[in-house]
């Protein structure tokens, strides 16, 4: 077990390193370096009255190591993040990128996590029902909804939600808070208000994943139900409910845990676009604006943190799976 954990941990560190290289490559993509953009920005906003001293420019260049080879720049960038938690400066928002990240990231994870829970809560009973009552009307209806869930892009669901709420309730469903709480400090009432709003975006976000999981659960449970041990248990006079819950369902549950690794990236990706449409206070809209304005340090910070937290989530799910299923840790 510990060996497995250790191996898995090493591979996670390696993954994070590869991701940091990838994100650094993205920062390098726009033409000109960060300082040029920053200087242009400063010149534009100060309307020419103040000239920026070349010393100041040199100073920034020095601190980011722009005069040095690319690998030095990489180490300076990642070093600042690791040691000081500095992600750079946003010239669009005129703030430190790290402030924006700490502001928005928790909301992204609140949304993704609730969506994740919702996916499980919905997919599990439906998957069991569809397998036990195979080819029933309900099974067909759920299969149909499942297909739709795969084919409808989730931003479209968000658009339909906007349309319906705007048209019939006179107020577009935008944001996560009612007006009176939007800028209020955190309190119990605000939390409840948020939870009231959260479930709709969470549902939209989770539909695709739910559809996939229902199909997996159904297929797995059908496989289990045809195994001889079920027949044995039945012939020994176990009640149907007990028979179902005690063994086959537990077996069929495995993919729920093992698919976290690819459900999570999907949720994070989905959050970006759904939140941009619904203007939720998560990472989505900020990352989107940062990318459009080529505000690269903010964008890079968000992408880095989002991907790393996803990788950690996958790591945790792997540990859970190893705890649940001895076959994996003994491999």
């Amino acid at each position, binding site marked *: 077990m510990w060996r497995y954990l250790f191996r898995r941990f090493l591979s996670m560190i390696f993954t994070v390193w590869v991701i940091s290289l990838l994100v650094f490559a993205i920062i390098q993509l726009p033409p000109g370096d960060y300082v040029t953009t920053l200087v242009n920005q400063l010149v534009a906003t100060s309307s020419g009255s103040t000239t920026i001293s070349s010393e100041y420019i040199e100073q920034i260049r020095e601190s980011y190591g722009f005069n040095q080879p690319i690998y030095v720049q990489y180490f300076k960038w990642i070093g600042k993040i690791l040691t000081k938690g500095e992600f750079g400066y946003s010239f669009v928002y005129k703030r430190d990128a790290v402030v924006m990240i700490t502001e928005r990231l928790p909301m992204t994870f609140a949304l993704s996590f609730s969506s994740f829970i919702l996916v499980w809560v919905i997919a599990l009973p439906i998957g069991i029902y569809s397998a036990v009552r195979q080819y029933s009307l309900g099974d067909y209806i759920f299969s149909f909804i499942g297909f739709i869930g795969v084919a409808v892009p989730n931003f479209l669901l968000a658009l339909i939600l906007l349309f319906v709420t705007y048209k019939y309730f006179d107020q577009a469903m935008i944001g996560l808070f009612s007006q009176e709480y939007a800028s209020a400090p955190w309190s119990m009432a605000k939390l409840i208000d948020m939870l009231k709003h959260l479930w709709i975006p969470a549902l939209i976000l989770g539909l695709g994943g739910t559809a996939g999981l229902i199909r997996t659960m159904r297929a797995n449970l059908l496989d289990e139900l045809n195994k001889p041990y079920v027949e044995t248990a039945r012939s020994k006079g176990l009640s149907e409910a007990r028979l179902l819950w005690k063994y086959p369902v537990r077996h069929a549950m495995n993919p729920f845990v093992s698919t976290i690794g690819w459900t999570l990236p999907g949720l994070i990706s989905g959050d970006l676009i759904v939140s941009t449409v619904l203007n939720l206070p998560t990472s989505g809209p900020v990352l989107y604006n940062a990318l*459009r304005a080529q505000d690269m340090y903010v964008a890079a910070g968000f992408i880095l943190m989002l*991907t790393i937290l996803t990788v950690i989530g996958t790591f945790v799910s792997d540990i859970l799976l190893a705890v649940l299923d001895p076959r994996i840790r003994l491999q």
Partner: protein
Amino acid sequence: MTINEIDRALADRASGDPASESDVRVEVATQWQLMWWKFRKHKLAMFGGALVLFFYLLAIFVEFFAPVNYTTYNEQYVYAPPQMIHFFREGKFGPYVYGYKFERDPVSFKKTWVIDESVIIPLRFLNRGDSYKFWGLFNANLHLVGPVNAEDPFYLLGADKSGRDVFSRIIYSARISLTVGLVGVFLSLTIGILVGGISGLVGGRVDNLIQRLIEILISIPNLPIMLALAAMVPLTWSTLSVYFMITIILSLLGWMGMARVVRSKFLALREEDFIMAAQLDGVPRVRMITKHMLPSFLSHIIASITLSIPGMILGETALSFLGLGLRPPVVSWGVMLQDTQKVAVLANSPWLLFPAVAVIIVVLALNFLGDGLRDAADPYQ
């Protein structure tokens, strides 16, 4: 089955034994025939396949199927609502739509177009309308359907903010949106076969390294990276360059599944007797792959191609919808959906969501087709 057995079965059939006739048919059929028979049983897949065929035909002949060109506009009919097409007038065949009139909204006092049932606009099938250069080769002006008087408004699915026909634009978009999927899948297939093939054939440490890399790439949420790459495409690039850049971005993040399929097939095939036999015969490696290995997993490749096109189409739609993908004047379903980002516009003209219906139908059809192909890919089971 040996030649003798086939002979015997054929002899049985000649002697008039009806039971063995179908057996013989199955036993002497080629691999592709078997697949076709198995695929045919899958009704939903057949239906999906027909739809996909229809959409690609539409994409080939857009200029003919669209009533007007996608750039044709009429500033008079901004946000005109959809018209219903009626086929019979006074008991005779004579297609027509109703015209429009202005009306003031009783609440907002805004002027809007509504359908006016007192005005009749006659239509004609195989109508001469907007002229176009078919495939850029020769001039034509034939359209499947159009108004008899070219000035009459004809908006089957409504008009957009510049008074352009949404229906025609959806049809023109099919060409872009569907080929983005094809080109993207072709690119990711190339990468996938290359990487997966190396991984499966070489094996050992190289295989291990490639597999770890693929695992890493799959565990990263790809939309942020896709957005970042797409946002970097310079605004000054030509539409064609942007188009290819977007397909490259989509395929760069979508080849991993393909590589895994190819690798697992190579690994399984290495153990097969006929490959061993070919090896002992001294067949060169390239010939071994192209002549003996590739045909035996081609069907699986086709199935995974079909199942990965929807991802490409949805990816392009999402990027373009956010304004980071294809840009006007190029028209794709995602580009059209950009107009729906403003909720007030969407609320007053919900027909702007019709491009999404096209996306959903195509994605569903491709999924059904792919499911059927995957089931049929291994006909010997």
